[in-house]
């Protein structure tokens, strides 16, 4: 890390403790100066730990599966369609929905940092931000899918979307067979986070049978 930890390595405490202390120190200084309010920090954390997560995206996908008019609106202009369900804002200002089909599988990456559609998926998992995923998703997507235990037919085209600007991508996975007439709530249980990034597929009915 720049500047501050090189001379501490021979001490007893771990790197993590160093970081913890440093974060605490900066928070205290910024709070004492009146730049941040710890209650606002708590709310930010609570929002992304408890309220905003992949369940939001699952509701969007389930609605698209169940409601053809909604699906059409979502694929035409996803931001307002997603806004209909109350999901909008930071890191989801301009969303595009990508529909997977037996002919084309879509997969999303941000090779340059960690761009991810927060309002519908929450904060990205560690692997999404990691060098292995960011380096290989664009050059060897089938290899990456294999890391997730996913094998697609050879004749399924793969389309990788590198989120290099402020457009955020949400994959609509293929609806599993045997789900005709299911409610949106029940359909949403089939929609995994990874299926909306394109590194996974939706669950099958047997996967959620109790």
């Amino acid at each position, binding site marked *: 890390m720049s500047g501050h930890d090189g001379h501490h390595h021979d001490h007893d405490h771990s790197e993590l403790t160093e970081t913890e202390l*440093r974060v605490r120190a*900066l928070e205290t200084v910024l709070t004492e100066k009146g730049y941040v309010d710890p209650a606002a920090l708590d709310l930010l954390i609570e*929002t992304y730990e408890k309220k905003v997560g992949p369940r939001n995206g699952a509701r969007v996908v389930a609605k698209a599966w169940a409601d053809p008019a909604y699906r059409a609106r979502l694929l035409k202009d996803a931001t307002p369609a997603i806004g209909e369900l109350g999901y909008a804002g930071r890191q989801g200002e301009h969303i595009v929905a990508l529909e997977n089909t037996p002919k084309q599988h879509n997969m999303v990456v941000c090779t340059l940092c960690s761009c991810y559609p927060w309002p519908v998926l929450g904060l990205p998992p560690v692997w999404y931000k990691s060098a292995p995923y960011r380096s290989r998703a*664009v050059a060897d997507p089938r290899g990456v899918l294999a890391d997730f235990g996913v094998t697609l037919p050879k004749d399924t085209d793969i389309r990788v979307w590198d989120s290099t600007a402020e457009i955020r991508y949400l994959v609509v996975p293929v609806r599993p067979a045997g789900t005709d007439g299911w409610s949106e709530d029940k359909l949403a249980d089939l929609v995994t986070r990874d299926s909306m990034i394109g590194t996974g597929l939706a669950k099958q009915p047997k996967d959620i049978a109790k």
Partner: protein
Amino acid sequence: MNGAQDLGGTHGHGPVEPERNEPVFHAEWEKRAFALTLAMGMPGGWNIDMGRFTRENRPPGEYLAMSYYQIWFAALEQMSKERGLVADEEIDAGHSLHPPKPVKQTLSPGDVAKALYRGGPTERETNTAAKFKTGDKVRAKNINPLTHTRLPRYVRGHAGVIERVIGCHVFPDSNALGAGENPQWLYTVRFEACELWGADADPSVKVSVDAWEPYLEQA
């Protein structure tokens, strides 16, 4: 900049290792570093592109050895110091030692939900016409700026097709330097894997990037 952040197509990083039932944060300090970064955007007065440039602008060995939130936190410290909002001796002491610098705005608890819901849209009005249209053949320019850019190395010099004219958006290369938003037309550009990676690449794979007009030339 051609830094370690520009990872597309690089080798040797090993397999992707998803974590089962991964928590949103892995340590208390990650939560605080995350929230501090979001909350300091207002008083700090920096924009998202300045933030990204500060994160990536470090020696590649360091970048790759640091965790994601360590990088975020290092950038937050650096931007706060550069703008005179905090001093090294204050972080060492763990207390404010100097009077605060006046700032335009801070984030109050009552504004959190509103601010997140509003976000920071980057589309801008324009009276210029887009140079390219859907279906046009284009080539990503071979540019190697020392400063922030969002044109990854793996597409530079390669030919693709305009798939979508997205709109006119804030241009990160300018915005990161504090040189203004300088909005430019933005396009989704699609490349064949074989164009990017050579004849041995998987012919069933296509890759797209979102590229601003200054990154592109007619092919």
